[in-house]
């Protein structure tokens, strides 16, 4: 009898131990800390661009000149978006530009990015050889378009949109492109 009691206590303990191990590691199953610190930081106007140094690996890194080109474009979009929505926004926007081969692991995509307007930030994959195109703002082959910048500025200046569809649609419209192609080239019936 005593032996059986002890066995059941042991079983309960093992069960509890398994539960603890599962529950303890659960937050790491859901979210892992991934502090990427090796950045070159370029501050330009209202943009703080974080990009990888040339010898970083994980795909091609932007040359310094390309980084300056990206920052200048983003500053241009920054103002153009405000002009479009007729709202002022003066906060600095942080851009984290990952090399293409490492981007999937760190930001979940190697062909674009996503924005976190709460912290004026967006993450993006640097893709050196993209489609030849001129965007709606007249910029030739921008490495990073205006899409994520639209999310940051509109969410902060106008508030969170009612639906995801509205948010994405507005960003595509203001960016003027989808998947690296001009929406006016692809959909010629759209109003100009």
């Amino acid at each position, binding site marked *: 009898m005593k032996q059986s009691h002890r066995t059941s206590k042991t079983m309960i303990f093992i069960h509890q131990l398994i539960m603890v191990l599962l529950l303890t590691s659960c937050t790491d199953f859901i979210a892992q800390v*991934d502090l990427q610190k090796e950045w070159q930081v370029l501050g330009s106007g209202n943009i703080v661009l974080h990009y990888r140094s040339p010898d970083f690996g994980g795909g091609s890194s932007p040359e310094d000149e390309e980084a300056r080109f990206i920052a200048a474009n983003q500053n241009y979009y920054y103002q153009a978006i405000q002009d479009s929505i007729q709202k002022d926004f003066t906060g600095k926007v942080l851009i984290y530009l990952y090399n293409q081969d490492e981007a999937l692991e760190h930001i979940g995509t190697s062909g674009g990015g996503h924005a976190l307007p709460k912290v004026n930030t967006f993450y993006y994959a640097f893709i050196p050889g993209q489609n030849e195109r001129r965007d709606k703002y007249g910029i030739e082959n921008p490495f990073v378009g205006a899409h994520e910048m639209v999310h940051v500025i509109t969410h902060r200046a106008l*508030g*969170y949109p009612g639906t995801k569809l509205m948010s994405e649609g507005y960003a595509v419209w203001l960016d003027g492109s989808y998947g690296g192609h001009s929406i006016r080239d692809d959909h010629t019936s759209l109003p100009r």
Partner: protein
Amino acid sequence: MKTVNRNGRIEKKAASLTRGTGFYLKTAVVLVSVFLLPFIAGAAEDIRCSKWKVSLEYLHHRSFSQQSTRIPMKAGFPLILTKTPVFGLGYRREYPGVKHFFSAAISLPGVLDSDNGSGQNYLFNGDESRLFISKLDYRLTMQLFQWKKITAEHAFTSGLLYEYRQLRYLQGGREITRDLNLYIGPRMQAVWQINDKWSLGGFFDGRFYLPYLNYGYLQSLDEAGNEIFSSSYRAFYYQTLSGLRISFQTSAGQRIDLGIKKDDIVGFANRKPLFRPDDVIHYKLRRDLRYYVACTF
């Protein structure tokens, strides 16, 4: 009832307040019931032990940004940081076979800073960005087993967490979030009685904040203080707390604890109570450390 704010936006503030009041009322009923249970259930002559506890925690708070939305998510820069003291008061009552422990804690408003990955704050005006936390906790503990000098216990925990966070952006805009969250969850704890004076303890808590038991309110204000957006939200968070302590029993019968707790929380808040992310307007992705000293008497 709809109202019109200064920007001409129509708000359903009154309706949202009504929902909020209902929530607060339900929460109050649940809490009062839970907290009164041990006093109703146990007879006075059965009380084995009755003790108070005071504690002082040093909270090192780190809130991460959701770098990747895939599961497992990646938590990265920019970080929101603060360090602030938290004051606690607890009361323990023991009956044969069960222990009840109640505690309350309140923090000083912590000044929030941000780190872009190279130690720079490009986001917040630290003087006006604040995090304030207060909480009520309850624990019903039962012994699991005793082996030599080791005692293991398991517990049911529940409580209420209130959190106020104001992010004052450098350009002047603000985002204010207020969270009132009820949690429930299991706990395991073990103590190794090294000798008559010294003991070593460890614990683990898993806490579930369910969307139907939570209420939050987010407000965005522009530089002039005009409201540009506001919405209530319902959060679904999962929190794990694990810790270690070393304790010393004084000859006068008091116990002094010195310990550390790792406090992780992850989750999101939609406008509607949902268990999946939909229109996420708030999130928590935190890894806090709490160093504490406590005295039980």
